[in-house]
């Protein structure tokens, strides 16, 4: 009986989490846009604008290029689903989600990679030069960001003795100490998160200057519901990385497995607080630097890769770093 109750509770928490990430992702995006506008002394669109945009887009008819293939129509759904699943598997307000073990941190990285693989493919589907330039550059960035991410995962996993996010969060909660390797990993992860979410200085999410865009160039041919799904997936990805940083490096407040309603509510509250804090810091960093030239980005991502590798090496030398 207790087992079944536990299972049901776990399923409820997991279901809540799936809805929660879906509900919060556009809010986080809207918040970052608002803060950015205020920092630039503009008024900016309302915080809820991304919801309205998404609603508007899914109600419109989709215009497809004449030679778009079946992959072009199917990919937005798959990209959205993959990113959603990945975001829902990161513990946000509670650890011990019932399907947390389905994918560990390495698998999560690879799931994000699956979404990117599809996105880069559809960038080439219509056969325009903009799509190609976006795909080519996205894969260049990914070819450094993904190994950097894996090395960061290695560092964290060697410290916590696990690649499971729940276990990592619990370990960090119980053994909170300052470690050199974790500092390196956290710095690296921020760099990777900036690059993966196409933020300044790697890419500009608001650009309409064609030669500077990467992510926007790939999705140039999309419209209507397809575009809505891709934008939603991008918002989910931002949420995913902020949650990932929160879960691994600032897990305080997260509700442990089997906690009561009160702890969960507190976990939810702190999680939302962490999201907004993360979004604010991101925008603050973004407004204080200029965008890089494309061929400076590999050096920037190389820093993350080296930080991750250094962290792993230190831990191979001694577990106490």
């Amino acid at each position, binding site marked *: 009986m207790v087992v079944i109750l536990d299972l049901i509770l776990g399923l409820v928490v997991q279901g809540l989490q799936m809805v929660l990430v879906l509900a919060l992702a556009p809010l986080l995006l809207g918040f970052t846009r608002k803060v950015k506008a205020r920092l630039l002394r503009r008024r900016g669109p309302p915080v809820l604008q991304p919801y309205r945009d998404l609603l508007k887009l899914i109600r419109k008819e989709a215009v497809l290029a004449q030679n778009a293939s079946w*992959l072009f129509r199917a990919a937005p759904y798959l990209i959205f689903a993959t990113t959603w699943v990945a975001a829902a598997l990161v513990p946000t307000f509670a650890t011990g989600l019932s399907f947390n073990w389905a994918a560990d941190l390495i698998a999560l990285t690879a799931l994000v990679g699956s979404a990117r693989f599809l996105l880069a493919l559809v960038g080439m589907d*219509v056969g325009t030069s903009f799509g190609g330039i976006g795909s080519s550059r996205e894969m260049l960035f990914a070819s450094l960001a993904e190994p950097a991410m894996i090395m960061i995962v290695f560092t964290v996993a060697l410290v916590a003795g696990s690649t*499971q996010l729940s276990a990592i969060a619990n370990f960090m909660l119980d053994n909170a100490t300052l470690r050199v390797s974790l500092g390196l990993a956290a710095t690296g992860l921020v760099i990777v998160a900036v690059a993966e979410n196409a933020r300044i200085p790697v890419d500009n999410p608001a650009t309409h200057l064609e030669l500077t865009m990467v992510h926007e160039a790939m999705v140039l041919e999309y419209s209507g519901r397809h575009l809505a799904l891709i934008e939603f997936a991008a918002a989910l990805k931002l949420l995913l990385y902020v949650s990932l940083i929160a879960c691994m490096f600032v897990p305080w407040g997260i509700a442990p497995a089997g906690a009561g309603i009160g702890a969960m509510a507190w976990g939810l509250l702190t999680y939302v607080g962490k999201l907004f804090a993360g979004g604010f810091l991101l925008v603050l960093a973004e407004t204080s630097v200029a965008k890089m030239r494309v061929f400076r980005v590999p050096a920037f991502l190389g820093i993350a890769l080296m930080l991750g590798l250094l962290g792993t090496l230190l831990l191979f030398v001694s*577990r106490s770093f």
Partner: protein
Amino acid sequence: MPTAVALCGVAVLLGTAGLALVARGRAAAISKLVYAVCLAAAVVLLLAGCVHLIFIQGRAEPVVLPIGLPWIGAHFRLDALAAFFLIVVNLGAAGASLFAIGYGEHETAPERVLPFYPAFLAGMNLVVLADDAFSFLFAWELMSLTSWALVLAHHRDPDNRHAGYVYILMASFGTLALLLAFGLLAGGSGGYAFDQMREGARVLPALVLILALLGAGSKAGLVPLHVWLPLAHPAAPSHVSALMSGVMTKVAVYGFIRIVFDLNGAPAWWWSILIIALAGITCVMGVLSALMQHDLKRLLAYHTVENIGIIFIGLGLALAFSAHGLSAPAAMAFTAGLLHVFNHSLFKSLLFFGSGAILNATAERDMEHLGGLIHTMPLTAFAFLTGCAAISALPPLNGFVSEWLTFQAILLSPTLPSWGLKLIVPAVGAMLALSAALAAACFVKAFGVTFLGRARSVAAQSATETDRCSLTAMFAFAGLCLLAGILPGLFIDALAPVAQRLLGASMPTQSFIPWLSIVPIAESRSSYNGLLVFVFVGVSALAAVQVIHRYASRELRRGPAWDCGFPDPDPATQYTADSFAQPIRRVFGAVVFRARERVEMPPPGDAHAARLTVTLRDLIWDTLYAPLARAIALAAEKLNRLQFLTIRQYLSLVFAALVSLLLVLSIWS
């Protein structure tokens, strides 16, 4: 019993080869018949392997045939390792034969393919079945020579002749190394059966390892011995390319495992450093070279080099762990390597089948002349896309599972006590991660340029979907890629007897874990469930489709491409294979290939086109092979004089040789 059945299957293959040599009649009918018989024989051999691995597991009684050298005979025997590789070989062989029933019709020179193809299959099977050094080497040479003949099937193309020349040189070198390795293993007593070698005294085991690395590594394509592979694999007909890349390289891996893990006794820890370092370099060099190609089949061949690196990382880690007596992690790393052997044989065969289907439909291998094939060959496109996703290690397909296991094995290696390993393993982990990410870029390029976009030639525009047999083979392999990705526990469990036999430990049983997850060590440490990920993504995507189509819009309009308002109808304005790889070439290639770009701009007022020249250097060829070739040519020139001596001088040479040999003999004792 399965050993005898397997030998009968091999006999049927050899008989087919003989009949194909003398058969006269309608080429198409003979071709279909030969491939159908090969398919049947491969299925029988496959079943023999499965029966042994699942039900018998231990070592079968040897079958000794009175052929070969009179005082040795020919020993054949199945054990768990051989049974696993028998499955890999014959799964690939069955797929290739099925594919070739349709593909072979288009063969322009069937008389150069049909006799050698069954003999090639027989050779690979015999290598796996052999239980003494003589049969092993004989089968190895049979495999090498028949595949060489198949590489030269279209020998009128000078590129193919060059490929055949380099291949036969490297193959002979590899066999020589293996011959010496077996000589050392046999020792002074000269026991050439594998059983005698296991019991005999060890002579220079480190040298045996190096010779095995040279011999099996050159066949498998370890850097820097890989030079023949990207030349020879694409030159053969596509179903043979699939076999060479997907299966023959695995037979080489089998040879390596048999010698190093089974016959050569307990390993020393430093051996693994050599293997792991070579494997890491192989990964990165393989995938970077693949990225620079625009010939689809050559790209796939280079990519085989990368995957061999991944396999050898697993094997090297297994050797490192077992040298330090850590048998459980050793079993995990070994299983990861073997699982990648199986997975790679699936998706690489699938991708070569796809490239063969494209070659038939368009007569093109060059991606720069393809494009838009997803419209004309939608089914091939779907199967090829599955293969691309699997080889790029994307969940929930199978390539990811073996890479995930390899990563988990790397995460266990801080327990290794030796400092050399502590420093090299994280670096190789980074190389593995880098090559996995670059592989994704490589296959976005391969699929994107070949199948997506607009057709770049008339041939690509007028291509038609390939035949049913080829499609069946491709879809069967795509299905297996998915199956091995979502139910990896079953495949890991099937490998348990192999690890148990060679390392004395195996991974925990996976089949009974709830929800069919895989948990290599403990659930609190790491787990992965491909099935759930697959179901989740599927359900979420369907839910999104349902919600949007029901509550929002499902209207659709087709219009011209937007392209920021300036669409150009010329397909030459698309990104090409070269332009896709240009940023990566600029970032990585400047060091690895000494890539240089030179732009020649015409002076102002001149209407000539500007020219961009890119030069890439193959540093391995330039620093290793070219000097060697020069030295050999020089030596040959000097020695050439010996052919024009007088009889008096020849006699004095003979006398000098005799005296010096006698001197050596007297000093030796």
